[in-house]
């Protein structure tokens, strides 16, 4: 039973990675958002470059803002993006 999760990218994160989403396997060892980010960083040099300054990024799990220590649980979707600038 391989769990997967959809990762969504927005704004300059999307531009620098050259994709707006990807579906990744979620290893049993990945419990928190930080664990999952660790897996993504391992997946390519681009990921490593874009995700190196985590304090410049924001994270939403199933459309709610979360901090890095949030447990992923049964979430279907993690979004990674810069601070919002709407309004």
């Amino acid at each position, binding site marked *: 039973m391989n769990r997967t999760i959809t990762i969504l990218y*927005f704004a300059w994160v999307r531009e620098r990675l050259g994709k707006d989403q990807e579906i990744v396997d979620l290893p049993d060892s990945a419990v928190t958002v930080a664990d999952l980010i660790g897996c993504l960083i391992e997946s390519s040099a681009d990921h490593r470059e874009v995700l190196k300054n985590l304090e410049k990024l924001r994270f939403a799990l199933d*459309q709610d803002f979360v901090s890095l220590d949030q447990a992923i649980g049964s979430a279907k979707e993690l979004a990674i993006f*810069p*601070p*919002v*600038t*709407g*309004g």
Partner: protein
Amino acid sequence: MIKILVQRDNFDIGVETTEIAKLGGGALASFIGQVRADNGLHTLELEHYPAMTEKSLHAIAEHAKAHWNLHAITIIHRVGPLPVGDNIVLVITGSDHRQAAIDACSYAMDQLKTVAPFWKKEQFDNGRSEWVQERQSDLQAAKNWDD
């Protein structure tokens, strides 16, 4: 009434105001944000995260409506390319009391700037483009409503 729209099309403050006015109350506050002609800016490109935008704008509207006892709140936010002078966002609140209407409108704008998943990219006359960065003053304004 809570009305949330995220759309490419423009909006009409007259139409939206009339709709809220029908609910009575007598006090209507509104705010419009437009693309400002700064430093050779040509177009603002608005990107968003649709599923989360909807959720986030509804949460802002519901909190404002309950906290200030509003009859109605309308939030319309545009996305896509918006040339200088174009409307970006409209918030209208309807209440029995002017201060409640004004405060709720101000609150909704402050929240919109800090929790709704929109991102602005500035495209300049000279071809350069740049993602807008978050402003500390916006974070502080949103924080001031916490107490």
